């Protein structure tokens, strides 16, 4: 029987009531009586030297309160990269300063070099047009490979355009090379992991306010992690003391990674608020989002897979060029390295793995983590080359994978890429997938398609990923400059209801529903009496926010730990009230009972006692009932899954239609199945978008060609089939209290290779010798591949 409350119940999302009624409160909805508006002057060329900027005309325009240029920020700090990567030769990565406003040089189309503050947005935009800039245009650096050999540099001091040349694991290199040299068979694949624009529904928006009386700043902003944003602004960019800066991320309409990072506009509105004495708002229009939100993916990779005669994997070796864009965004160096290379053993017992990643600066928007962040790139490379290998060896692609799977009795399993997988059962996932997808009916469906003149293909994929980022000690050794714990405060009010303050930030995930389910279950009380508070640094403990499918695994664990402390203290109070010893007190269904008796007090009575401590053992227990816990995970969590799909390809036009899709995931224990299914749906939408539709393209001058929805294809409902989603095969995570793994990115990680594998299968069934097509598989791309085969 499915439960109707607490852990495991498909409780409806309480936040949806306000979202669906249009009552959410987003940053741009906030207004004040003294509001002024910012607009940015942005470069229309990809690369150029700023010879001069003349703001006099702009300053004289109606309504203009202030004009800023890069010069105004020449003395403040830069926005740093959060992770230090060392190159293979031991040298540290190159870290150019990322300024608030471009100074002396512009480095990508959309790079802001000036800002106007005015009474109205129109006036600010008009004044931006009156700023005169003299730019000496330089050749644009767009292609990653060409960038490394040219004599033209994004940052003058980095004379190769290379940020780092990273090897993982360097000590495995020789063994991997040997294994490949001596192997029975080697499959080689060159591929591109296409660049994506995140396209959160709500554009970025920031409001800066300044109170002269206390020298205090408040920033409302579209952030996935308000404390991280505050830390970056305080410690690195502006030097505002943390206790003088409040960062509030109210309702946020999607992030997908792009709102993890601190952006210059946030610093600008704060500086502008102080200079003008006004509250200053900026909201991106959609063009600014396209040009300046951190983009995702953009890898060029060569992968080799060596096998023996039976199809046993002997080695994976990859060489990847990762485009990091014009500046290092905060996680840009972690994404193509530790979130990517460490996953390059996949679900397999392969003994040798070596990953080389060269990160390259170009005159394009910064590239950083986007839903999946590194793991989609790893999975895509692995699962495409395995599929190609199966075809070359004449083996069934599912059998080839099974032959190499880590088996259930091998956990904990240390992969050849250095991670310790704690739990999983990849064969069980594959079995379930074959059951729910009706594999047996495929041949009949293929015949029906062929009768219509269509080609039908079946594609399969297995993935593993790493969530719940991350053990601070481990990532600290690997170069992370932050800890990756999270925090929660559980406050029981005198009348027995609760507020739970969490470091995670909900921008679509459903924390306001799920966290109360957990706490309610633990305390035996109705979850509707529990409120979640998030997003405001003045109200919540210092947590690291939401990304990398970490909220439940890390912050949820902090919530559990804080609730454990509440229970421990409440038991002491109950023991006093019941004149028993606290070790004899049991908590069940919201009542504290002396075990073996019918003597009990309710949770509400204990709460009241804590705040009205009459006849209270004040010498032993403090009044009040409020506890905080910081939780630092012992390991990553390792969700895994088996995906398959069927596609139909129109051989006359190259158009691909996804007919069926089955996703079977191991997320460990599931707190709210409905929300998990929704997360998978969203991930699949974005993954199928990457595979078939979304292609961010710059031309050779560094102009963004796909800069509007007229040219950048977002997945729409009718591009997607009805999904079959199953998470019945979970194996609990062994090292966090809820046994959870994380479900937010899986769909986007597992689906792109599934789709491409299916399209290749369809084309092969039509007699086309096509072994690989780079994403997105648009009609023209598929048609061209067919006609060149």
């Amino acid at each position, binding site marked *: 029987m499915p439960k109707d409350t607490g852990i495991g119940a498909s409780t409806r999302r309480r936040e949806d009531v306000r979202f669906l009624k249009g009552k959410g409160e987003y940053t741009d909805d906030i207004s004040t009586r003294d509001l002024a508006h910012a607009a940015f002057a942005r470069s229309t060329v990809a690369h150029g030297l700023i010879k001069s900027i003349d703001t006099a005309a702009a300053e004289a325009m109606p309504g203009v309160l202030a004009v800023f240029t890069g010069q105004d920020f020449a003395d403040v700090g830069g926005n740093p990269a959060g992770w230090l990567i060392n190159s293979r030769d031991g040298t540290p990565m190159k870290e150019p300063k990322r300024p608030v406003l471009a100074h002396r040089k512009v480095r990508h189309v959309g790079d802001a070099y000036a800002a106007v503050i005015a009474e109205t947005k*129109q006036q600010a*935009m008009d004044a931006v047009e009156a700023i005169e800039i003299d730019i000496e245009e330089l050749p644009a650096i767009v292609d990653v490979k060409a960038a490394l050999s040219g004599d033209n540099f994004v940052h003058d001091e980095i004379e190769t355009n290379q940020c780092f040349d990273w090897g993982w694991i360097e000590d495995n290199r020789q063994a991997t090379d040997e294994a490949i040299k001596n192997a029975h068979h080697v499959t080689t694949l060159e591929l591109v992991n296409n660049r994506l624009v995140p396209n959160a529904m709500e554009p970025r928006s920031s409001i800066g306010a300044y109170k002269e009386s206390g020298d205090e700043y408040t920033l409302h902003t579209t952030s996935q992690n308000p404390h991280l944003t505050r830390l970056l602004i305080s410690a690195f960019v502006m030097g505002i003391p943390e206790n003088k800066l409040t960062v509030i991320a109210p309702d946020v309409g999607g992030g997908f990674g792009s709102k993890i990072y601190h952006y210059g506009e946030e610093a600008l509105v704060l500086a502008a608020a102080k200079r003008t004495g006004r509250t200053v708002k900026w909201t991106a229009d959609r*063009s600014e989002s396209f040009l300046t939100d951190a983009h995702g993916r953009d890898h060029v990779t060569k992968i080799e897979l060596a096998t023996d005669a039976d199809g046993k994997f002997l080695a994976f070796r990859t060489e990847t060029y990762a485009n990091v864009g014009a500046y290092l965004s905060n996680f840009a160096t972690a994404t193509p390295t530790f979130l990517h290379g460490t996953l390059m053993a996949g679900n397999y017992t392969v003994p040798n793995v070596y990953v080389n990643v060269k990160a390259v600066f170009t005159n394009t928007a910064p590239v950083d983590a986007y839903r999946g962040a590194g793991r989609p790139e790893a999975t895509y490379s692995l699962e495409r080359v395995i599929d190609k290998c199966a075809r070359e060896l004449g083996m069934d692609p599912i059998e080839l994978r099974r032959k190499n799977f880590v088996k259930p009795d091998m956990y904990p399993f240390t992969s050849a890429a250095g991670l310790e997988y704690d739990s999983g059962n990849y064969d069980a996932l594959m079995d379930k997938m074959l059951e729910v997808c009706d594999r047996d009916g495929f041949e009949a469906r293929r015949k029906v398609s062929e009768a219509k003149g269509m080609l039908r293909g079946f594609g399969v994929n297995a993935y593993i990923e790493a969530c719940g980022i991350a053990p601070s000690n481990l990532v600290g050794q690997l170069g992370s400059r932050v800890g990756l714990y999270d925090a929660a405060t559980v406050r029981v009010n005198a009348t027995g209801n609760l507020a739970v303050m969490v470091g995670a930030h909900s921008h679509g995930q459903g924390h306001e529903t799920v966290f109360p389910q957990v706490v309610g279950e633990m305390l035996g009380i109705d979850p509707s009496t529990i409120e979640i508070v998030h997003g405001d640094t003045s109200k919540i403990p210092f947590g690291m926010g939401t990304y990398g499918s970490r909220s439940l695994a890390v912050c949820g664990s902090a919530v559990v730990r804080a609730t454990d402390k509440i229970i421990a203290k409440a038991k002491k109070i109950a023991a006093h009230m019941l004149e028993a010893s606290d070790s004899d007190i049991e908590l069940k269904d919201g009542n504290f009972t002396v075990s073996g008796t019918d003597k009990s007090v309710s949770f509400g009575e204990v709460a009241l006692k804590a705040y009205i401590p009459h006849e209270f053992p004040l010498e032993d227990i403090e009044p009040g009932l409020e506890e905080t816990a910081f939780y630092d995970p012992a390991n990553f969590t390792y969700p895994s899954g088996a995906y398959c799909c069927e596609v139909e390809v129109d051989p*006359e*036009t190259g158009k691909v239609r996804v007919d069926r899709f089955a996703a079977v995931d191991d997320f460990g224990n599931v707190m709210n199945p409905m929300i998990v299914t929704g997360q998978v749906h969203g991930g699949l939408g974005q993954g199928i978008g990457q595979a078939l*539709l979304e*292609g961010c*393209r710059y031309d050779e001058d560094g102009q963004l*060609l*796909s800069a509007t*929805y*007229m*040219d*950048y*294809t*977002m997945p729409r409902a009718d591009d997607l089939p009805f999904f079959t989603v199953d998470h019945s095969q979970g194996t609990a995570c062994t090292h966090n209290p809820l046994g959870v793994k994380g479900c937010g990115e899986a769909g986007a990680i597992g689906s792109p290779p599934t789709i491409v594998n299916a399209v290749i299968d369809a084309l092969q069934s039509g007699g086309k010798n096509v072994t690989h097509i780079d994403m997105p598989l*648009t*009609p*023209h791309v598929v*048609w*061209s591949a067919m006609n060149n085969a």
Partner: protein
Amino acid sequence: MYAFDIERPTTIADAVAALKSDEAQPLSGGQTLIPTLKSRLAAPSKLVSLSSISEMVGLSDEGGVLRIGGATKHDTVAKEAGGSHPGLAGLAGKIGDPAVRHRGTIGGSIANNDPAACYPAAALAHGATIVTDRREIAADDFFTGMFDTALEEGEIVTAVKFPRPEASNYQKFEQPASRFAMVGVFVAKFADGVRVAVTGASEDGVFRWTEGEEALSANFSPDALDGLSVSAEGMITDLHGSADYRAHLVKVMTKRAVAAAR
């Protein structure tokens, strides 16, 4: 957007008068013009809204010819033209999404002559007549190139007259992002021959595929096109498809339109 004035005349005559002022521009459904204004790519000083002019709205039968008022919305055409002009109704029903179809108008679409718009193909394939506030223009003379028409400064499309075909159909191969036509082919069969109009494909905007017309006039069946091929010269190459691909699609879509024509 830049600031502008707006007028809402209720007669064609008043609209024409209002358009005489400097930098005035007609506003119909706004589905092209408003986005252009929002991104500051146009700066008219005055917009003259056509949506309150009742004489420009609706469908009527003029002796077997379907007359559609210039301010008639796509949704209305989709719902009401199907009896006599199934191809035209089908085309209107596939423009954009419901929101676009409840705002966008035939006059706005024809006047704008976007090279990827659907209506120009219908007008050309039907041999329609474009009615303006001052004259009537044959479709063959009206579309003069990408975003270019025979309209004079301040001239308004008040109606479009479509003769009734014996059979017609529109096949649209969508550009994946915009879902405008990457290649759209309208086939219309009349007693005196078949007309084939192609949108989306050519750098010169909508055009007639005369070779296809001849073959289909002789034999109105998809097979009639088998030996023909469409030249890629002058076809659009962009992010979404090459000239070769578009040329190929012209034939594929024409065949499908013939097969589906009713």
